[in-house]
């Protein structure tokens, strides 16, 4: 082109003409949906506690039930619609983690159960697990020496 921007100018210009996400609306939606998911978790937690289970058992079972619900609604093709509406509201809770494991497992089934589902299941959640474990080991070591 005869007249054009430099790369820096172009980047600035593109930023000025590209629409931004509707931040305020998205935050409200994420807050409501994320809050509702947490309320559901709390109801399950209280119900299990009311049945006389000890607190470790209640925490573990509540997580397991929420993970099941996330996986279940992913399989029913509902969770992606929820995610489109709620954004971080449905990604951050543990149901979102289940969705990030189940969705590639479903998607890559066409390449077989081993090289498809098995190999690709953790393609999104994998880094979370890797760095989660690393961080927990690090914190564990610090904890050991300090206390």
């Amino acid at each position, binding site marked *: 082109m005869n007249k054009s921007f430099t790369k820096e100018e172009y*980047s600035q210009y593109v930023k000025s003409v590209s629409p931004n996400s509707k931040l305020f609306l998205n935050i409200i939606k994420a807050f409501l949906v994320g809050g509702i998911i947490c309320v559901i978790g709390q109801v399950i937690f209280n119900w299990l506690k009311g049945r006389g289970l000890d607190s470790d058992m209640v925490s573990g079972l509540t997580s397991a039930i929420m993970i099941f619900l996330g996986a279940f609604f992913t399989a029913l093709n509902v969770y992606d619609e929820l995610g489109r509406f709620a954004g971080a509201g449905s990604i951050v809770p543990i149901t979102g983690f289940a969705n990030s494991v189940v969705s590639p497992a479903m998607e890559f089934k066409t390449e077989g159960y081993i090289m498809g589902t098995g190999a690709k299941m953790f393609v999104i959640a994998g880094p979370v697990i890797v760095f989660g474990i690393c961080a927990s080991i690090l914190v564990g070591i610090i904890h050991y020496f300090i206390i």
Partner: protein
Amino acid sequence: MAERHIGKQTVIFKNPPSIKATASIVGPKEGKGALRQSFDYIIPDELWGEDSWEKAESKLVRETLSKVLQKGSLSNDQIEYVLGGDLLNQCIAANYGLRETDIPFFGLYGACSTMAESMSLGSMLIDGGYADNVVCMTSSHFCSAERQFRYPLELGSQRAPTSQWTVTGSGAALLTSDQTGPYIRYVTTGKINDMGISDVNNMGAAMAPAAADTILTHFADTGLTPDYYDLIVTGDLGKVGKKICLDLLNMNGIDLENRFNDCGVMIFNTKDQDTHSGGSGCGCSATVFAGHLYKEMMKGNLKRVLFVATGALMSPISTQQKESIPGIAHAVSIHRSLD
């Protein structure tokens, strides 16, 4: 001395090839879009009876080829070449879609610019006397593209407002040496153009400089002015890229406001269909050209069209390695008659 080459990047044909027929098959979402009336067939669901998205895309290619041959009243053995490609790794949609056709095949990859690339090369084959009948075609499929370039379909994520929606569809043009028209008069081949945009959710911005560059070069090489064309149409810049392209052209003293559009903006009802900036993918420009634009030319509503398909030449690997996105645009100048 190459007598048909003019200016820096343009070819003028001595025996301009004709576009004898076109065919387009699209997905269900495109079939609810703004141009739904113009397509030959709308598939009932994205799998179309196959067991994977990739196989469904190959079926799109296979059926679109047979449709264009049927409309052009030609059989497979009368076609000298098929030129085509798609977005999938190693162009498997075209390779598998065409494997039973028994027609010599050149596989092309120009990302979403492939339709104009195939028509450019097909025209050169015909004008050069190497072929009489050539089919130029491309395809893309929302689901197969999503999983190659983005995330699994069922992942609950939000799309950026600048992102685009890959069109499910395949479009084909049958080029012949018959003097029936509409004619391909010029082609301007684009250069790879990288302005440093690395956001894969804003491919319109990555491709717009390439489109503007090719359009400006086309006018410089041919000596034509914008009012020569009834419509200058880019491939898949989307709403954001369309605005950027117009601004870049304006900076260079060319005002196309009333005769400029973009296939990605035209194909969907972007607001109702939640497609954000618009459509994209090889199938976007291919189906809009083969469906809407060709029919408008045949009706006489458009006499001269400059078809500028645009491509973003990145891959998931280059994106992860933090490379910017190179863009490209090829222009094909199509005339209803030769006067």
